[in-house]
């Protein structure tokens, strides 16, 4: 028998997700998770809102200069005042990452640099092999939105993106394509929280 909508909502309400990075991916992932019913979110980012972020990140002009975690939390609480948000305004490292995300049911990697992405994936998969991790790679540029997909290269890793389009190769970031990747990440997390292992 299929679970009822109420049962699905209850499952998501009881779940927690850690979002590592609150920029183009993370700010949008967090909002989609919350709107879908995931009320326990850990938000991690060291940065402050900049005018250049507003083309794709869920921030507003009157939030420029504020820590991204705080600005995002303010917006999320406008969506759902009952959200349980844990904020960490710091830079993730090999040393601090595991303790920050240990209690989450799913971890979402949403940072921007390639070396930080690799560090997050390597550290989480090594220390928390039983915690599903969603990561994104290849979302820059104006390539087709249809080339962004979710794969499952190993049991607890969901890999989103076209895997190729590198912002450092001169591809600009468009809100539309970043949002497609964000939606893939959020949906991979939601499906996994609901018990669906395939992306």
């Amino acid at each position, binding site marked *: 028998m299929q679970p009822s909508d109420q049962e699905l909502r209850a499952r998501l309400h009881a779940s927690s997700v850690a979002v590592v990075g609150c920029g183009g991916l993370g700010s949008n992932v967090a909002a989609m998770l919350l709107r879908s019913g995931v009320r326990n979110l850990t938000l991690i980012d060291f940065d402050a809102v900049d005018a250049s972020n507003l083309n794709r990140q869920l921030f507003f002009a009157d939030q420029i200069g504020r820590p991204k975690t705080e600005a995002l939390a303010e917006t999320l609480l406008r969506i759902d005042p009952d959200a349980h948000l844990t904020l960490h305004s710091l830079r993730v490292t090999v040393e601090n990452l595991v303790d920050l995300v240990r209690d989450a049911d799913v971890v979402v990697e949403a940072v921007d*640099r390639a070396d930080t*992405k690799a560090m997050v994936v390597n550290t989480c998969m090594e220390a928390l092999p039983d915690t599903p991790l969603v990561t994104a*790679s290849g979302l820059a540029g104006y390539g087709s939105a249809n080339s962004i997909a979710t794969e499952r290269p190993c*049991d607890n890793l969901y890999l989103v993106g076209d895997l190729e389009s590198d912002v*450092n190769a001169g591809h600009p970031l468009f809100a539309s394509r970043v949002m497609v990747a964000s939606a893939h990440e959020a949906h991979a997390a939601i499906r996994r929280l609901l018990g669906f292992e395939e992306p």
Partner: protein
Amino acid sequence: MKVDIALFAYLADHQPDGVGGRHARTFDLPEGTTIADMIANLGLPDQPRVVFVNNRHAAEDSTLHDGDRLAIFPPVAGG
């Protein structure tokens, strides 16, 4: 021993057959070959990467075994 090796994204250009593409190729390797040895043999650039063996995350100093499936994925920037 035989090991299947798949290289994702731009690393696919480093497959010795030069054909590219992410599908796995089978390599005949001496016993005791480590993942780090293969990374050196293939001439992979010193860029951030994630390594899997048989669909599990693996450390680069791990030794490969007959029948293993090695996959190496390089994250690219953007977020």
